[in-house]
């Protein structure tokens, strides 16, 4: 487990060095279930705590309260992040700096929310973390997910942001993963696979 974390840190540091000069990129992180949480925290820590970059965190796996607690326990300033909670089963509502969408099936609402949140961030340097893509596949048809991926990557380019897409490698369809790798600038694999 520790070895995996070290590998991720190493790969992420290499990635940061390579893309340091770039304001915008798309990074795909494929993880195994064990290292998933640590990977997400490390990415947010690097962007928020180390570089003071504001951003948007789209969560399909954990409710806002849990993520906030998790980030706070890792000394991440959650005030710099706009959260979009897609996993909590509730009506669409906004509480503090979080918008609850209500269901991962509401892709249109999710898209509008992401667009509005990213555009509201005032600085040029900003990020969007999509956590995680494989959960989307549970609730939507493969064709719909593929279209959404295309939309998301195109939008990330248009917004000129640091885009990070996290997905569990084993739970993601190989064709979908290939497509996503093709759209991304770099890919970091944790828990098997190779660097792209």
């Amino acid at each position, binding site marked *: 487990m520790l070895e995996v974390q070290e590998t991720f840190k190493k790969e992420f540091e290499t990635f940061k060095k390579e893309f340091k000069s770039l304001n915008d990129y798309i990074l795909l992180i494929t993880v195994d279930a064990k290292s998933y949480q640590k990977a997400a925290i490390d990415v947010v820590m690097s962007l928020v705590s180390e570089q*003071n970059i*504001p951003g948007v965190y789209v969560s399909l796996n954990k409710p806002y309260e849990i993520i906030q607690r998790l980030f706070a326990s890792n000394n991440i*300033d959650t*005030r*710099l992040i*706009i959260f979009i909670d897609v996993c909590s089963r509730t009506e*669409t*509502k*906004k509480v503090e*700096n979080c*918008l609850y*969408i*209500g*269901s991962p*099936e*509401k*892709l*249109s*609402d999710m898209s*509008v*929310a992401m667009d*509005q*949140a990213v*555009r*509201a*961030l*005032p*600085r040029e340097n900003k990020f969007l973390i999509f956590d995680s893509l494989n959960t989307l596949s549970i609730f939507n048809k493969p064709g719909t997910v593929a279209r959404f991926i295309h939309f998301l990557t195109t939008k990330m380019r248009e917004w000129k942001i640091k885009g990070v897409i996290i997905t569990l490698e084993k739970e993601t369809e190989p064709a979908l993963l290939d497509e996503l790798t093709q759209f991304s600038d770099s890919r970091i694999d944790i828990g098997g696979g190779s660097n792209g």
Partner: protein
Amino acid sequence: MVNLGIVGVTTVIFGITSLLLISRARSRLSEGSIRRYMDNFAICLAFIVIFSIWQTTRSLLGIDITLEGLGNYPEYIFIIFAYVAFVVASFKVLKVSEEFGFKEDGKRIDKLITEISINSQTKNQHLAKKSMKLNKIRK
């Protein structure tokens, strides 16, 4: 009379085209706030289109339809319904803007980043002064 007929038919065509476009847009959206707003908008438009069809038909055929207690032009009921639906749709838009509007969050974050950068600058200056003092003492 002919001119009015042309205007009426054109209005109906535009209205029906708009309804078809909304229907196509709606079918592409998944369930949620945006789709519900579109439903409200479609209802408003539907009332106006019904009003236009009624009025155009009446003016082309020269028929006067009167309903007891509703005056000479019952088609105006649809305009009233359309305005009511517009009020409901506007209220829904207000709700959507409350949910999806992040402008205030953006301003708050901007202020916060400015504060953080000022604090870190002050801290760095303080540290620099401290290390200069230490260097002087060492010398």
